[in-house]
């Protein structure tokens, strides 16, 4: 399934560009930077702009271009294990081999479909659970006295500072067949044989909610804390009951926090690897795990790249929503 | 300067056509995108002046100030300071200092270090710096607070640190952005006089931005009133109050009763205006350069209107009648809102000269309002 396109290009012209330069210079920001630098010399301002700019272009944006490129390559037994996209025919024609086999493969094989759908489902349900647990917590923290507020907030962030891997590991000891929960229930005589919790979707949900809860609570707290409490008093004064006031005033005003929190949980959860690997067991199909296995076990770099591009396409919309809110927040803070 | 002001022969520089302006603002326009913040402003400010830019929020006064400081560059036009074109000179190279509305004290430095900061940038000798800092702190009565950090000071003390920090560099021009805005009312009144005093003693030219007309009237040698990016009138406080040239200025400074009318009779030294809403003919004892039959306005300040229950001897002109609608007793004065027969409400203030007025005017009384022919100001726009 190889499509070959011939791009005729002048011999001399083609040799002037190194492959990387060709990819880089086409990007408008690089073109802009080059002109800026040549025009201004190296003033302080352009230096401050260009250092992080070049860093992020090189180490954040270019890698995605490369992933895209390799997703169109063919897998070979070599180092590195993929074919080149661009080649020379008779030193005159630049050939561009676009191999869409990887994409066809991940579309045709139901394993990938199932993994995608399952990842979305798991991420969505975990996000909802996180919101249900996190909202009352954030609300409760925002409404306690300022002294308590800082302590509680610290307590929410604190687990984040201890190792994520070890916190997931802790759940193995709690959930496994001879783990803490089963031991307690059995010694109390409530159950006779252990409940199987490890290597089930349940364990994955618990793991994700547990690990990502701080990411949900923090943005929620930030919006709820900023809220003017006299708005609620005004609503009560106008005859609104507390629960209705919550639905009509507090909830709508906290939507930016809800969106930010949900995106902060949902997007990484879709690609999560550690939690399904450790808590979900071999039967849990999640796309992050699939990518990992393709890459490390099968050494199928092109397929892994195609999977990564597919995840990105799925996540483009949530990521853009997140960035929109993030940018609006930053502007509002000014 | 002080001596000069007391001298009878003192001629204000703005009335002297030969005087060289110290700050020359020439046709300055500043646009932010499509928004015109400052619109074709030309203005001369003279040495040793305390000039106030007065206007509501968003009128462009702060933008004009920031252009003087060098934080903004004019879109067009130029600014000269002491004969030098300021275009392209960054703030750190201008002989201009600014006192910020928020005071902008460096929170991590002591009072002393804050005041010394500007001098250290000039690479002055250490003992020179500490001498000037001490002198300046003495001048603003903060010598005993030299080692404190800004958050250990009260609002009034912080204001004085900000002032000292800007003045210690002996700038050619000191810019003050709402210098008294963050102080409470009592402190503000006291500080107003201190500020004028300090300006007299240091001889530095001050440009003050404020939205508070009372502040402008007390502080300024001259006031420039701004509206929608333009300077609408420049003059001494008395000129601005007693001889406004536009309805905007008359209305913005103090309160005023505005009557719309047309000229019914005129000569070189008088004019008669028929004012429909005043329900009388207004007689003005000077001529007016207005096209016949054009609409014009007469502005009369509330304190220049007399109020009485009996009609005045000559009620044919400058006299109208109405019913007292509201009375506000303010202690020093009383304010009456009188509804004329045509429906227009006129505001009148009367000083409370006696503790017991024998014959007081009360609600629903029919009263006569009259004023002197010199009291009305004729406005063409």
């Amino acid at each position, binding site marked *: 399934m190889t499509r070959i396109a011939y791009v005729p290009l002048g011999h001399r012209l083609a040799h002037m560009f190194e492959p990387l330069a060709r990819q880089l210079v086409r990007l408008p920001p690089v073109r802009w930077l080059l002109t800026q630098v040549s025009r201004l010399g190296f003033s302080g301002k352009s230096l401050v702009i260009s250092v992080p700019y070049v860093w992020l272009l090189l180490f954040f944006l270019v890698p995605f271009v490369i992933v895209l490129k390799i997703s169109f390559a063919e897998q070979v037994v070599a180092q590195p294990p993929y074919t080149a996209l661009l080649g020379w025919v008779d030193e005159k024609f630049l050939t561009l081999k676009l191999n869409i086999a990887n994409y066809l493969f991940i579309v045709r094989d139901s394993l990938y479909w199932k993994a995608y759908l399952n990842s979305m489902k798991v991420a969505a349900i975990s996000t909802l659970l996180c919101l249900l647990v996190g909202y009352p917590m954030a609300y409760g923290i925002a409404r306690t006295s300022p002294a308590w507020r800082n302590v509680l907030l610290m307590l929410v962030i604190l687990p984040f500072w201890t190792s994520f891997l070890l916190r997931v590991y802790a759940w193995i000891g709690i959930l496994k067949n001879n783990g803490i929960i089963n031991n307690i229930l059995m010694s109390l005589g409530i159950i006779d044989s252990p409940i199987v919790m490890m290597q089930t979707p349940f364990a994955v949900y618990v793991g994700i909610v547990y690990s990502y809860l701080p990411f949900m609570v923090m943005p929620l707290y930030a919006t709820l804390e900023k809220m003017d409490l006299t708005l609620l008093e005004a609503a009560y004064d106008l005859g609104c009951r507390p629960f209705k006031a919550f639905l009509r005033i507090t909830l709508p005003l906290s939507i930016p926090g809800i969106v930010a929190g949900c995106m902060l949980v949902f997007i990484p959860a879709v690609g999560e690897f550690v939690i399904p690997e450790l808590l979900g067991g071999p039967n849990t199909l999640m796309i992050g795990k699939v990518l990992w296995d393709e890459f*490390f076990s099968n050494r199928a770099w092109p397929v892994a790249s195609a999977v990564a591009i597919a995840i990105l396409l799925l996540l483009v919309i949530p990521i853009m929503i997140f960035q929109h809110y993030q940018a609006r927040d930053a502007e509002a803070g000014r | 300067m002080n001596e000069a002001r007391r001298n009878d022969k003192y001629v204000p520089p703005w009335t002297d056509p030969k005087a060289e302006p110290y700050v020359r603002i020439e046709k300055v326009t500043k646009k932010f995108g499509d928004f015109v913040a400052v619109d074709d402003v030309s203005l001369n400010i003279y040495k040793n002046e305390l000039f106030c830019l007065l206007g509501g929020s968003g009128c462009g006064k702060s933008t004009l100030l920031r252009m003087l400081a060098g*934080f903004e560059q004019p879109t067009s036009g130029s600014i000269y300071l002491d004969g030098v074109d300021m275009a392209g000179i960054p703030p750190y190279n201008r002989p201009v200092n600014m006192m910020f*509305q*928020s005071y902008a004290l460096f929170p991590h430095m002591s009072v002393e270090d804050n005041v010394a900061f500007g001098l250290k940038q000039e690479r002055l000798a250490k003992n020179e710096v500490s001498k000037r800092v001490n002198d300046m702190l003495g001048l603003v009565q903060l010598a005993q607070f030299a080692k404190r950090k800004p958050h250990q000071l009260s609002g009034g003390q912080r204001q004085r640190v900000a002032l000292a920090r800007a003045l210690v560099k002996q700038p050619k021009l000191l810019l003050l952005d709402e210098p008294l805005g963050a102080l409470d009312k009592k402190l503000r009144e006291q500080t107003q006089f201190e500020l004028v005093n300090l300006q007299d003693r240091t001889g530095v030219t001050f440009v003050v931005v404020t939205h508070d007309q009372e502040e402008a009237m007390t502080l300024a040698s001259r006031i420039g009133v701004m509206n929608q990016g333009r300077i609408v009138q420049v003059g001494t406080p008395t000129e601005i109050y007693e001889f406004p040239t536009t309805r905007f200025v008359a209305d913005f400074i103090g309160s005023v009763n505005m009557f719309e009318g047309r000229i019914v009779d005129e000569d070189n030294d008088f004019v008669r205006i028929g004012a429909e809403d005043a329900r009388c003919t207004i007689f003005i004892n000077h001529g007016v350069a207005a096209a016949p039959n054009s609409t014009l306005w007469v502005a009369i300040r509330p304190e220049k209107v007399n109020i009485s229950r009996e009609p005045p001897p000559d009620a044919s002109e400058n006299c109208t009648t109405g019913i007292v609608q509201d009375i506000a007793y303010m202690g020093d004065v009383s304010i009456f809102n009188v509804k004329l027969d045509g429906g227009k409400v006129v505001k009148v203030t009367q000083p409370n000269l006696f503790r017991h007025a024998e014959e007081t005017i009360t609600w629903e009384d029919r009263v006569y309002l009259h004023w002197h022919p010199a009291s009305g100001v004729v406005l063409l726009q």
Partner: protein
Amino acid sequence: MNQKRSWFLPACLIAGFAFLYVPILSLVIFSFNASKLVTVWGGFSAKWYAELLGNSQILDAAWLSVRIAAINASLAVVLGTMVALVLTRLGPFRGRALLSGMATAPLVMPEVITGLSMLLLFVSLEQWFGWPQGRGVTTIVIAHATFSLAYVAVIVQSRLTQLDESIEEAALDLGARPAKVFFVITLPIIAPALISGWLLAFTLSLDDLVIASFTSGPGSTTLPMVIFSKVRLGVSPEINALATILIAIVAIAVVVAGYFMKRQESMRQRDIQRAIAANQ
């Protein structure tokens, strides 16, 4: 607040915090378990700690991770602060939107994608330029710094937007050049944000398994990679001991930091009180 619902929020808070802390507590308790079966209590013992301290694989990996985390954090603070400065202080310029996008996207990018793309970049760079030769500490640091700088940028940016810009303008006005204003005025004021940014970047790096797995080479096995390979084989009391030590370090650091912050805050409050009193 409302009387009837007053039990609801405290109950939620207690349940939520129990959920957050019971697993951590269980890690600590069972690290002192004499039995090798991690979840069955076999009496008090500290032998797993002794065993941990004798395990050179874990200790070497921990030392490597700490070094990587420290270099990463320092690099991320410099780059992240530059991003924050550019976005908050340098005004509009062409390409600003792209920069702000590139600086926030790593916050939510799934780790497997970041890791894969980084690895492929390093492989391609090596092919084209011969650098980096193989993968190891350098590549891990670059990969970590790229996503850590996004976190630092967010923290510093929010501090800079809170900071009254006229303080910097005042310094310019008093004759300091822009670079000097940054180092003498801005930097000392935003220093707390830089410190918390550094700590966050340090923790992120110390904690990362996925990206490190992609970008490390032979001989650069980080602590999370060692833990992961052990945990995959089932629970191990040594890991509990390691977790307890990490938790203890974090807890002590937080208590100390909290104490100093509280002391500073109360001193500040006292000063403010005194200033108000002096004024009256």
